[in-house]
């Protein structure tokens, strides 16, 4: 029987890539009086619920979907954490 997993994936723009959203939010926070904010980067948080035979194959699937669909390695990078759900 397959086990249940949850992957929490963080997709961020690479450090050298312009982040217009982050820049706009930084400015807005400054305007609101949060002068101590130095930098904001806005990325994506993707939660994927999936079934897999074991942790290794779950990890493998998550890494592959990140590379194939969820990110474009040209401008983005990603990290993820996997948790097994107890049913």
């Amino acid at each position, binding site marked *: 029987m397959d086990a249940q997993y949850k992957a929490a994936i963080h997709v961020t723009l690479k450090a050298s890539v312009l982040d*217009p*959203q982050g820049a*706009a*939010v930084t400015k*807005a926070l400054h*305007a*609101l009086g949060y002068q101590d904010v130095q930098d904001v980067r*806005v990325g994506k948080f993707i939660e994927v619920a999936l079934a897999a035979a074991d942790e290794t194959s779950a990890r493998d699937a998550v890494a592959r979907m990140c590379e194939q669909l969820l990110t474009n390695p040209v401008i983005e990078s990603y990290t993820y954490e996997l948790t097994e759900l107890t049913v």
Partner: protein
Amino acid sequence: MNTAVLQFPGSNCDEDAVKAITQTTGKPAELVWHTAEDLSAFDLIIVPGGFSYGDYLRSGAIARFSPAMSAVREAAERGAYVLGICNGFQILTEAGLLPGALRRNESLQYRCAIVPLTVVRADTPFTSGYTTGEEIYIPIAHGDGNYYVDDATLALMEQRGQILFRYAKEHNPNGSVDDIAGVMNERGNVLGMMPHPERAMHEWLGSADGARLFASILTTWRNAHEHANA
């Protein structure tokens, strides 16, 4: 009627709104930069469409903190008319002047098209030139027009008659709850809508149905004004 059209960095339907007002009243609306703190001279304030602050983070999220938005709140409290179109609607919901929120379109795509709307109520300052249940054609142009309210609020809004426009049956372009295209505040002087009435001013633009919305406001204002002066 004195009309202000607010301009935020990234507004882009501001000039179109001015044109619509000029055509309706014979007198241009005043473009007011977002830093303005006093809007007491205006009877109608239009919060126009566009991409204020790039719509970064969330549509309307950053613009709602502009000084002019505090002035809009005061104006609404004193009973002036406030019309938020598209991005303006998003800003008004973010500012809490209207209930609900606007999410990404269900298709995840930006959609520009002339769509059929049903006028839900024709007995308001904004819609007196229409008839209840009338089908009108107004363009939409948005990526985040998918209106959301929770069920309890929706029921209340229904009951209070706050829903003014719905997308015609089978023509919901974005997934909006209850096909909602435009809603009013409880007091009845603030309207937010995703469709662009200022783009429906002439047959050659594809529809002239939007012109009646501006005419309705003008008529209501005149009536109230003459009444007050009488």
